[in-house]
C-alpha cells in the first residue's frame, strides 16, 4: 500500500540531465514526425502526407466557397447579388456535394487499410533483434534476451535490422514511442504487445511515453542510439563483460516509484520479463498486490 513519497525537487536533477543530454546529443530534430529515420516511420509519414494533402484540398475548397459566399451575399446596401429566399434545395448540387467527400474518403481509406495490415506484420526475411521493454514508475527497462544484457532509459540498436519490441508494464499503462522510427503502442501490465521498428541511419533519437501514468510521467523519456551492426555487437559484448549483473535486488529497486538515470547491466534475473514460454512467473508484467 505504501506509496513511496519522495521530494520532487530531487527530480530536477534527472530532468536537467535529460535536458543537457538532449541538447548535447544534437538529436533535437525539430519536426520529429516529419523526419523519419526508418521504414516504419517513413511509411507512416507517407500516409500522413497523402491524407494531409487530401485534407488540404478539402479545407481549401470549403474556405474559398465560404469566403465567396459570405462576401457576395453580405447584407449591405446596394448589394446586387440575387436574393432567392425560397431556394431550399437542388438535387444535383446536393448529389455532387455528397459524392465528392465519398470519393475523398475512399481515396484515403484504401491506403489506410493496406498500411494498417502491413504494419501489423514483421518483414519475414530478416531475423529481428528482440528487445523486451517494461515501463516502470517512472523509467524504462530494456532487456535483450538474445544478448543477455539490460539497460535502463536508453537502448542501442543496429542500423538496418528490424527490431521487435515486446512491450509490457509493471506499472500503469504507458506508450512506447520513438517518433523518428515509428508510431507508438501501449505498454500495459498483464499483457505483452509486439511493435516492430527499424532504424536506417546511425544517429541518436529520442523516445518517450505518450500515455499519462502519474506524477513522474514527464520523466518517461529515453534515448535510442542506432549504430552499424558491428558496433552494436561490440557494444553488447562490452556490456556483458564490463557492466554489473542485475540482481533481484536491483530489479526490485527499479520497481520502486522514482526516476532513474541511464544504466546498463550485463545480465538479469530470469522471469523478470513474461514471455510466451514461461508466462508471468514473477511479478514482471503484473504489478504487485495492493496491500
Amino acid at each position, binding site marked *: 500500500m505504501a506509496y513511496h513519497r519522495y521530494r520532487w525537487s530531487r527530480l530536477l536533477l534527472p530532468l536537467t540531465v535529460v535536458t543537457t543530454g538532449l541538447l548535447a546529443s544534437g538529436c533535437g530534430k525539430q519536426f520529429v514526425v516529419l523526419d523519419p529515420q526508418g521504414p516504419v516511420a517513413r511509411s507512416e509519414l507517407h500516409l500522413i502526407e497523402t491524407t494531409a494533402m487530401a485534407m488540404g484540398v478539402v479545407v481549401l475548397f470549403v474556405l474559398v466557397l465560404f469566403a465567396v459566399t459570405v462576401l457576395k451575399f453580405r447584407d449591405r446596401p446596394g448589394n446586387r447579388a440575387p436574393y432567392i429566399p425560397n431556394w431550399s434545395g437542388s438535387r444535383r448540387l446536393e448529389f455532387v456535394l455528397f459524392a465528392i467527400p465519398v470519393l475523398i474518403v475512399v481515396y484515403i481509406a484504401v491506403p489506410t487499410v493496406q498500411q494498417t*495490415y502491413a504494419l*501489423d*506484420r*514483421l518483414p519475414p526475411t530478416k531475423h529481428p533483434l528482440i528487445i523486451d521493454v517494461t515501463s516502470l514508475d517512472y523509467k524504462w527497462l530494456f532487456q535483450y534476451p538474445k544478448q543477455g544484457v539490460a539497460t535502463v532509459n536508453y537502448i542501442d540498436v543496429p542500423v538496418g535490422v528490424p527490431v521487435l519490441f515486446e512491450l509490457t508494464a509493471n506499472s500503469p499503462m504507458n506508450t512506447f514511442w520513438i517518433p523518428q522510427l515509428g508510431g507508438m503502442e501501449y505498454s500495459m501490465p498483464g499483457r505483452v*504487445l*509486439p*511493435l*516492430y521498428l527499424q532504424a536506417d541511419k546511425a544517429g541518436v533519437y529520442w523516445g518517450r511515453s505518450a500515455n499519462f501514468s502519474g506524477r513522474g510521467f514527464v520523466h518517461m523519456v529515453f534515448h535510442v542510439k542506432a549504430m552499424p551492426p558491428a558496433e552494436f555487437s561490440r557494444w553488447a559484448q562490452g556490456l556483458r563483460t564490463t557492466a554489473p549483473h542485475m540482481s533481484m535486488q536491483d530489479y526490485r529497486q527499479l520497481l520502486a516509484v522514482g526516476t532513474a538515470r541511464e544504466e546498463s547491466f550485463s545480465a538479469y534475473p530470469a522471469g523478470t520479463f513474461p514471455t510466451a514460454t514461461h508466462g508471468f512467473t514473477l511479478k514482471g508484467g503484473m504489478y504487485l498486490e495492493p496491500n
Partner: protein
Amino acid sequence: MTQVQRPPAISAPTGRGDEVEIAILAPRFEEHAFPWRQIFGYAASLILTMAALLLVVHHVLPPVGLIVAILALATIQASLQLGLFMHLRESLGSTWHVVTLALAIVVALGIVIFSIWIMSFKSGVS
C-alpha cells in the same frame, strides 16, 4: 370471445408522433375473456428454459453449437415475453417505443460483440 380494438385510423399527421404508424404495428388493444396469451407465454417460457437446460446438461452439441443454440432459445423466449406479456403492439399515437427498442438492441449487440472482438487482441505480429 375476442375483441380487438383499434383506434380510428389517423388520416393526417398530428404532430404527436404518429409518423411511424406502420400497418403491422398499428396499435391494437386486445381483450380476451380468458388469459390464454399469458398461459401460453408461461408454458412456452418454461418449456424453452427446460430445453436449454437439457441441451447443456446432456452436452447435446459441441460447445460452440451449444452456445448458439441456447442463445437462440433465449432470444425466442425474450421475443415471446415482449410480444405476449409486454404488449409490444400497444401504444397510442406512435410506435416510437418499438423504434427505440430496436435501436437499443442494435447498440446492445454492438457493444457485446465488438467488445469481445476488440478485447481478444488479435495482432498479426507475434
